[in-house]
């Protein structure tokens, strides 16, 4: 059974410069216990998509359907939604400023725990310390009484993860948790996320392909507000079908950094037809006219992409 089903989701932001179409008709399903990597660059709409699920976007127009275990999230009232946040669906943000600088880290985690119904202050604090121990923080008791500015970057991210896991949620949305960390710290954080989410569902939002590969069962690639390709991790890596995904791989340092030409289009003024066609190195005449649907590739079942070229053969 799928834990999360997104149907025809549209998110738009009205701004003085025009309507920013951040997410355009996204369909996505996440199985119970599955870990999905959402790959995209700045302005691809991946973070907006993640926050739309927990309804934490302000100033946005959200349309479509988001179903969490049969509950239509967009139809819930605010109080019901609030009950889901933290205890059923939690979010792990990129850390530097995501912890409140004037509150002790342990208290911030305990606050979450108390919301679930643990009314005793001491018990909540004890559980918070346990949560910090669970993410591999040595001397958790000591660190629980310290403030975020005393933590290093990696420690803060661990604390954020502890916070996200404190109420034992079923679904975790992690928004770029590895951004800006040094390589060796990043490796530790990636491993930690992989280990603590073994029995959970995870939506892992990132721009980092290798981090996603280490954690996720499936990967979805977003470009310009829509999903252009989704499939099993090894499929996406070994056999990328969409030219954007291919280009992304080629841009990696390890693959020699060969660039995709052109720049990501603005989300106000989205290109017609296939959104990638102005930058594609093998466009056909149809690409500029029609918008390709997200279809299953004939060669590999369960591997979906949005490109006419592969659609045909």
């Amino acid at each position, binding site marked *: 059974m799928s834990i999360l089903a997104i149907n025809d989701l549209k998110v738009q932001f009205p701004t003085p410069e025009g309507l920013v179409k951040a997410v355009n008709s996204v369909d996505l399903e996440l199985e119970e216990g599955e870990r999905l990597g959402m790959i995209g660059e700045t302005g691809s709409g991946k973070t907006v998509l993640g926050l739309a699920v927990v309804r934490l976007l302000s100033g946005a127009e959200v349309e479509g359907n988001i179903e969490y275990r049969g509950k239509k999230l967009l139809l819930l009232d605010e109080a019901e939604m609030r009950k889901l946040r933290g205890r059923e669906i939690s979010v792990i943000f990129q850390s530097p400023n995501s912890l409140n600088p004037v509150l002790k880290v342990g208290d911030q985690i305990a606050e979450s725990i108390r919301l679930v119904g643990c009314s005793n202050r001491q018990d909540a604090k004890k559980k918070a310390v346990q949560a910090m121990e669970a993410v591999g923080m040595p001397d958790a008791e000591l660190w629980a009484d310290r403030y975020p500015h005393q933590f290093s970057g990696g420690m803060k991210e661990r604390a954020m993860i502890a916070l996200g896991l404190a109420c034992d949620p079923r679904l975790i949305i992690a928004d770029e948790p590895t951004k800006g960390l040094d*390589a060796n710290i990043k490796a530790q954080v990636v491993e930690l996320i992989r280990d603590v989410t073994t*029995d959970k569902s995870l939506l892992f939002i990132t721009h980092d392909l290798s981090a996603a590969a280490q954690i996720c069962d499936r990967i979805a690639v977003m470009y310009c507000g829509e999903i252009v390709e989704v499939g099993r*991790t*090894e499929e996406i890596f*070994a056999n990328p079908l969409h030219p954007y995904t291919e280009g992304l*791989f080629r*841009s990696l340092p390890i693959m020699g950094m060969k660039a995709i030409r052109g720049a990501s289009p603005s989300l106000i003024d989205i290109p017609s037809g296939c959104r990638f066609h102005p930058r594609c190195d093998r466009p056909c005449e149809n690409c500029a006219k029609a918008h390709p649907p997200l279809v299953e590739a004939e060669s590999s079942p369960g591997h979906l992409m949005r490109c006419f070229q592969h659609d045909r053969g």
Partner: protein
Amino acid sequence: MIEVEGLTRHFFSGRLGKERVEAVDEVSFNIKRGETLGLVGGSGCGKTTLGRLLLRLIEPTSGRIIFDGVDILHLKRREMRRLRPRMQMIFQDPDTSLNPRMASLESISEPLKLKGGLTRAEIEDEVSRLMEKVGLSPEHLGRRPHQLSGGQNQRVVLARVLASNPEFIVADEPLSALDVSVQAQIFGLLSEMKRDRNITFLFISHDLNIVRLMSDRVAVMDRGKIVEVGPTEEIFRHPLHPRTRELVSSASMDGQLTLMLKEGLISTVTRRPRPRMGGVCDDNPMDSKSSRLMINAGCR
């Protein structure tokens, strides 16, 4: 081209400066003309400070910097200013590298105006030539930094830097604030500059995989000191200092994994028996060695 001896800069941790203390301690190295030296290290190791010191954008506490035979620390203000265009800098965050109140045209033409002796038309010609070179179109001329994307701003920075016709460039994490695909584009421009103009680079980065592509030699920095220098491949194959080993192993982990996945050598790294809490588990999840073993096992 560049020789550095015992370069030191201490920061007296001021009332507010506690977190930003990024000292440089007795650093010595040299870069030959046309060579690119990669400078790697974790955050806060002092690499940014070192970059700024080299161009004398901040004054060192002690040490010597010889640029093209000239001891630049003994130059007078005026002489230094005359020398400056020959050494340029590219910063990490393109959005703050340009004056927010100047349009691209102004930013790029400023070094040309300072050089003097050019007519307005000549300056405009040169600017449009530079714009084209870095892949910007004329429509970007009148835009200010906030009207451009990070990648476009970094291109404007490159055009502005090229306008000075430099021989030596300190590139301080020029790619790390950019998206993967934009990184590749800017990287292309940088290697073009290196190839076509024989520009000497100090390429500062925390990403060893990029440094490997860009540099002839690599210097590893840790807590204000350079702990290892050597030819790039040498450093990657036989890292000697523990800090270097740490950096190299986490970088190649990343790269190897991607490569193996791409070549279909391993099916997946994530699908492994999932021990529930309290269950018996052979490998300790907190041990970083386990994942490496696992990948190797998957290889066969």
